[in-house]
C-alpha cells in the first residue's frame, strides 16, 4: 500500500509543482498510514535520494534518456504498470501541462476515479472526498472518488512545499520498463528560458487595456523585474496581440493562484476574476474607482497607472536595497 507521486521534470530539473505534489502525497500517505513513493521517468541532474526531504520513502526511476521527453501514451502505460506492481492505492500528479496529458490516461487505463484540479488534501473521515476548483475558479466542488484506486491531479500553488518532515533520504529503486515507441514525434520545442512559468509563479504583475498599448508595457516589466515576478495580461490585451497568448489569464486563458497578483489597468470582468480569484493577495491599480476589480481586491490604489506604477517599482527597489 502506498501513495505514488508522479515527479515531472524538464531539462534535467525536477519541477516545483513536483515538490508540491510530493509534499501533498507525503501528507496524504501519513493520513492513510501508508508510505509515499515517487515515480520519475527519465533522468535528472540531481541525487534523487534527496527527495526524501519531502517525505518520499522510495523513488522509482526508469532511468532511460529516451523517456526524458514526455509522451502521454508511453508514460501512461509505464505508470499504470508501476501502480499495479507497487500496489499503490492513490496516484498523485501535478495538474500542470504534463499532468493534464497523462493523469486522465492513467485513470482510464486503470478504471480509477480521477479528480483534476485538487486544491486540498482529501477528506478521508468518511469515504474519500477531494476539494477541487469548478466553474473556472468561481466555486469549489467536493468530489467523492468511489473506486479502490484513486488518481488526483493537484493544482499548482495550492499546497505548500514541506521540507524536512520525512526521513531525509529516499531509496532509489530502478524501474525496469520496456518502453514502446511513441506515436507522436516531437519535431521541435521552444522554451522561454530564465522565465518563471506563469502557473508556478508566486508573484504576478498583470496589465490590461488601461495601459493603452504594447509600447507602454515597460512599466509592467520594470515592476515585475524588481519584484522577481512573472508578467500576465487580460484577454483584450492578448486578443489585440499586445502580449503573447500564453500570458493571458482568465476564464478562457489560464487560471493562476499566486501569493500576489497585481492587476494594473484591468477592470475586473467576471471572466478575468475567474482565472485569478484564488490568488492569496490581490492588488488593483485603476483610475476608475468604480472598476469591479476593487470588490475582489485586498489592496488598491485609485490612480493613474503611469504615475503610480513607476513609484511602486522605485519603492520595491529601495526596500530590496
Amino acid at each position, binding site marked *: 500500500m502506498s501513495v505514488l507521486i508522479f515527479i515531472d521534470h524538464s531539462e534535467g530539473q525536477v519541477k516545483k509543482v513536483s515538490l508540491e505534489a510530493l509534499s501533498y502525497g507525503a501528507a496524504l500517505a501519513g493520513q492513510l498510514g501508508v508510505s509515499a513513493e515517487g515515480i520519475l521517468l527519465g533522468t535528472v541532474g540531481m541525487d534523487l535520494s534527496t527527495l526524501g526531504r519531502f517525505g518520499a520513502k522510495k523513488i522509482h526511476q526508469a532511468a532511460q534518456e529516451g523517456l526524458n521527453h514526455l509522451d*502521454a*501514451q508511453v508514460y501512461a502505460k509505464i505508470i499504470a504498470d508501476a501502480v499495479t506492481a507497487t500496489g499503490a492505492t492513490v496516484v498523485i500528479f501535478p495538474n*500542470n*501541462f504534463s499532468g*493534464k*496529458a497523462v493523469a*486522465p*490516461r492513467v*485513470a*482510464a*487505463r486503470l478504471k480509477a*476515479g*480521477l*479528480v*483534476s*484540479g485538487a486544491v486540498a488534501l482529501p477528506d478521508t473521515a468518511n469515504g474519500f472526498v477531494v476539494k477541487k476548483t*469548478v*466553474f*473556472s475558479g*468561481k*466555486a*469549489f*466542488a*467536493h*468530489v*467523492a472518488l468511489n473506486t479502490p484506486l484513486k488518481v488526483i491531479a493537484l493544482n499548482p500553488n495550492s499546497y505548500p512545499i514541506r521540507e524536512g518532515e520525512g526521513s531525509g533520504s529516499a531509496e532509489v529503486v530502478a524501474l525496469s520498463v520496456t518502453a514502446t515507441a511513441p506515436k*507522436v*514525434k*516531437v*519535431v*521541435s*520545442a*521552444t*522554451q*522561454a528560458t530564465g522565465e518563471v512559468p*506563469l502557473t508556478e509563479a508566486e*508573484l504576478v504583475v498583470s496589465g490590461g487595456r488601461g495601459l493603452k498599448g504594447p509600447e507602454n508595457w515597460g512599466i509592467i516589466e520594470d515592476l515585475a523585474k524588481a519584484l*522577481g515576478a512573472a508578467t500576465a495580461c487580460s484577454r483584450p490585451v492578448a486578443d489585440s496581440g499586445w502580449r503573447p*497568448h*500564453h500570458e493571458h489569464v482568465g*476564464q*478562457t486563458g489560464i487560471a493562476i493562484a499566486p*501569493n*500576489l497578483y497585481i492587476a494594473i489597468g484591468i477592470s475586473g470582468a*467576471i471572466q478575468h476574476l475567474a482565472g485569478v480569484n*484564488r490568488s*492569496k493577495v490581490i492588488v488593483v491599480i485603476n483610475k476608475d474607482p468604480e472598476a469591479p476589480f*476593487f470588490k*475582489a*481586491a*485586498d*489592496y*488598491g*490604489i*485609485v*490612480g493613474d497607472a503611469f504615475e*503610480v506604477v513607476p*513609484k511602486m517599482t522605485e519603492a520595491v527597489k*529601495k*526596500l530590496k536595497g
Partner: protein
Amino acid sequence: MKILVCISKTPDTTAKISFTQNNTKFSSDGVQWIINPYDEWYALVRAIELKEKDPSTVLHLVTVGLADTEPIIRKALAIGGDEAIRVNADSADPFYIAAQIADVARQGGYDLIFTGKETIDYNGSSIGGMVAELMDWPYIPLAVKFELNGTVATVVRETEGGEETDEATLPLLVSCQKGVAEQRIPNMKGIMSARTKPLKVVEPVAAETLTSIVSFELPPAKAGVKLIPADNPAELIRLLHEEAKVF
C-alpha cells in the same frame, strides 16, 4: 476522412454561479447555456475549416446530455458539421462520459477527434485523454495550431512556458485552445440548414460512474479593499511587505 468533434453544454461565461438543495445542485435559475467556448471557437471551427479544404470530409458532432442539450447541438450544427449524435445520458463523471464518446467514436470509424481543452464548468481537462486511452490512440493536448497533410497531422501545443511542435499519423485525438482557429458566428443559411441536419439520439452504453459530486462551495467573500492614496505608492509596497508578507 471522418472527423468527430465533442461538444459540451456549459453555463455562459458571465453566469453568476450559485447552488441549491443544500449546495448539492448547480442552480440553473436565469443561467444562459452556451456551447463550451473551447469546443465551439476552436475545435469545431478548425474541423469546419478542414472540411472546407477537403469537401469529401465527413464531420460529425457528439454530445453526452439529455434532451435539454438539443438547442446547443443545433447551434453547433448551424456553425457547421454534417450530423450530430446525442448520447441520451447525464453525468458529471469524466470516465462515464469518455466511455460514451469512445463508443460513438468506435462505431463511427473516425480518423480524427477534436475536443476543447477543457469545459468551463468542471474544468477537468480529462475527457480527451480518457477517450484516447480507451481507444488506444495518441493524444495531443492543448493545441494552439493544427495542420493536416494527408494523414499526417502537425500540431503545435503549449507547454510550461514554451511550445512544442509534434507530428503524428492519424488516427489522433487533439484538444484545442486559442490559436487553433477563430470564433465564427452562425449565419442565417447555417441556422436554416441546421434544422434539417440529422440529430441522432442513441442510448448510453453500460459504463461505470467512478466519481460523484458530494457538494459545492463558493469561495469566501473578500473582507474589503484597503485603499491607499495615489500619491503614496510606497505605502502600498510597505503593506505588501510587512502586513501581507507576500515578498
